């Protein structure tokens, strides 16, 4: 009997089980203490669509064997650059999705180039990718602090009214803010469904899934799963790792554009610093390991992780009015999950 329970527990995964239980528990508490369910539900769905693509960026990097992409800020910076350039040049006509499409297109070359360079770096430090990735991310964010101040952007919506440099947050109201959310968006009994956002997210997942079933995708997966096997089958492992890193960076760039769009603001300066961690935590909760991941992990993980955070915030505020407990809770859950996943690394399935 215990064996059977253990088997199922293993199959479902301990972290996923704990988070699911916690999520359900908090949802029940939210209802009990009388929080507006419809508002919470809208929020959960919106954040699910908003964060999903950033979590999806972990898929190619894990599949190609470089582990979760802790250097996601590289992709994020590329996405931000794309968005800023779009606003700067005023490419915000409705034909360009109010700037959404142009932002994605402009960020692509940046993402490809930086992903390529970063991929080459990763090939030189095999075995300690995650640590190096974390600090590469930190460094690039810090480096861009200088960039945001000194780059010659002139658009008045982005610059400080007095002094030099870009603002900390740039409003997207006049460009592509909430563009996707509004496409075919509708409300059911007070719950707003941002159809366009969700469809775009699912579309991205579909593309990644299709890629993973193509020849290049399978090669990449093998290079990640067993490099020695890959070499014996004539697969160039290093090349595939670079491809995975480029893809991850591109998806990260698209991810931040979608995130900002739904959020309504571009967040510059320190905001991208810790962006990688919730994304990593999400796929890990979803059931991924540092060496194996499926699209379903992204979907389940993002929903659980973002759902938990969204609901936990008002619940915690209600229960403990003093202090910023929800933020503490978020940090505990997020870092705890990453810690758990890292201890599982290399051992077992």
């Amino acid at each position, binding site marked *: 009997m215990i064996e059977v329970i253990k088997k199922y527990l293993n199959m479902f995964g301990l972290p996923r089980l704990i988070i699911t239980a916690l999520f359900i528990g908090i949802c029940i508490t939210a209802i009990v203490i009388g929080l507006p369910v419809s508002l919470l539900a809208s929020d959960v769905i919106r954040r699910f669509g908003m964060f999903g693509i950033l979590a999806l960026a972990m898929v190619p990097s894990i599949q190609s064997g470089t582990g979760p992409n802790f250097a996601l800020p590289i992709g994020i910076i590329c996405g931000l650059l794309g968005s800023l350039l779009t606003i700067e040049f005023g490419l915000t006509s409705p034909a360009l999705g109010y700037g959404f499409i142009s932002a994605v297109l402009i960020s692509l070359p940046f993402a490809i180039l930086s992903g390529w360079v970063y991929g080459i770096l990763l090939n030189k430090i095999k075995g300690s990718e995650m640590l190096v990735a974390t600090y590469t991310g930190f460094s690039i964010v810090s480096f861009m602090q200088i960039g945001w101040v000194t780059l010659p952007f002139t658009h008045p919506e982005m610059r400080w009214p007095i002094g030099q440099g870009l603002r900390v947050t740039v409003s997207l109201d006049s460009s592509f803010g909430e563009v996707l959310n509004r496409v075919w968006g509708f409300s059911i009994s007070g719950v707003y469904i941002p159809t366009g956002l969700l469809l775009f997210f699912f579309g991205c997942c579909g593309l990644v899934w*299709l890629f993973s*079933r*193509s*020849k290049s995708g*399978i*090669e990449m997966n*093998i290079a990640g*799963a*067993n490099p*020695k*096997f890959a*070499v*014996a*089958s*004539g*697969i160039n492992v290093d090349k595939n790792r670079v491809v995975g890193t480029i893809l991850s960076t591109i998806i990260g760039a698209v991810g931040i554009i979608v995130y900002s769009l739904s959020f309504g603001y571009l967040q510059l300066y320190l905001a991208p610093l810790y962006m990688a961690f919730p994304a990593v935590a999400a796929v890990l909760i979803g059931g991924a390991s540092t060496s*194996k991941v499926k699209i379903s992990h992204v979907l389940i993980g993002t929903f659980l992780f973002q759902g938990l955070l969204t609901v936990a915030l008002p619940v915690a505020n209600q229960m403990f009015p003093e202090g910023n407990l929800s933020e503490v809770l978020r940090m505990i859950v997020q870092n705890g999950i990453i810690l758990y996943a890292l201890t599982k690394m290399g051992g077992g*399935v």
Partner: protein
Amino acid sequence: MAIEYVLQMKNIRKEYSGNKVLKGVDLSVKPGEIHALIGENGAGKSTLMNVLFGMPVIHSTGGFTGEVYIDDKKVDIKSPFEAMKMGIGMVHQEFMLIPNFTITENIKLNREITKDNFVSRLSKNERLKTLNTRAMGEDARKALSRIGLGIDEWVMVAGLPVGYMQFIEIAREIDKTGLKLLVFDEPTAVLTESEADNLIAAMRRLAATGIAILFITHRLSEVLQAADNITVLRDGELAAARKKEDTNVIELAEIMVGRKIDITSKSEQTEGQGDKGVILEIKNLSVDMPGEKVNGVDLEIAKGEIFGIGGLAGQGKVGIANGIMGLYPSKGEVFFKGEKLNPNNTKDALNKGLAFVSEDRRGVGLLLDSSVELNIAVTTMKVKDKYLKRIGFFNQIDSKGIREHADKMIKKLDIRCMRPQQLTRQLSGGNQQKVCVARALTLDPEVLFVSEPTRGIDIGAKKLVLDLLVKLNKELGMTIIMTSSELVELRTICDRIAIISGGKVEGILKPSDSDRNFGLMMAGEYRKMQSKEAI
């Protein structure tokens, strides 16, 4: 009362989960003698030593039966530490020295001589005492001198020649008080000839002081040079115990190899294989594979034969196939049907019609967390673009095609799995091996390299895998090049067998050739003998 034997092991039996590794071995060593223990890989030498040292691997797998006597007293050694206390020392094959410590520090490691200081007196804590470097240095000097090593005892170990490191290990062992028996585990394997001579001289000197030496080796000439008595193990049995005066290299070679099973070879019809022409020509191939270096191998493999590559572990037999397939950097030329292969290019080799079943089944041969069907199809998909559907400029895997092919292979090779989607991790060793073979066959190769196909699989499955290779050879006319540590296997199914020693071809034999020749070649003595006879 004089002690007759310093070590006696009587009727030692040991099995690992039903697999009998030692089947009643006796071993007796007198004080002050050099006793050689020889045998092929897997003959049971290391297991016997593990028993002697009370290694945890023995006790955690159910212990052993039999009796061990030290100084004519029955003992029960439960851990290496106890063995050490009883005066048994071991010089390891891979050097267990700390490179950034001096020679003295290495010799005295964990047995440091200490003296009191202010803090240790005050706290009465042994662990806070200061090292007595002078006394340590003196002890180290004494030990080094005993084996005739004139090196300064305060030199750092890092950067010393390999030969010296071995001596330092010996010095460490003899520095331990009360050492009665010193075991050398293949000490000359990594040494040059002159270093080996020095070592043997040092062993003689030690033996003269009354320490018994147990000397495990493959090199038969050294055995005769150094040892007083010789014990030969074969398949976990005591094959022979000889005095040095009563034997010679040829006899030892014969005893070591032996003929273990009747050869029901396929080779009745093999005469005249040669006239089908050469399919693979290897010229001066050198492969830089760690632990299995190949230094200049020339071979010609005829179309349609089963060619065996044998030899002892570490001599380079495994490196040949790995080098040709481009998995390790190689030099030299390989011609396949007269066409030169691009060196170090796996894809090219696979594309031209070579396929490889790796000796490292779980490491190189399989995607353990992928399905059986994907494992079978994936290399062919990569190399030949098969099992793909084109959709515009995009392609997708052809799941149906893969499934059909996998079903066919599963039936053909009799792979026992629940379904084609099962993960290969869950299969038994023999079935995993069949998946590897299926993957190679999917490539439609003309030449199939198979390395250690029966390693780590049970006896029943071994026969199936070997039968499968013979069947492939007979029915499809596939040329098979099989590398194996098990001579019996090679002699069972191969047409010709090349024995590799020291990274070179020692000679090519027929399966029906005498045990003597096989044994001599394995030990790397064949050419020496030949040249002597020629004179």
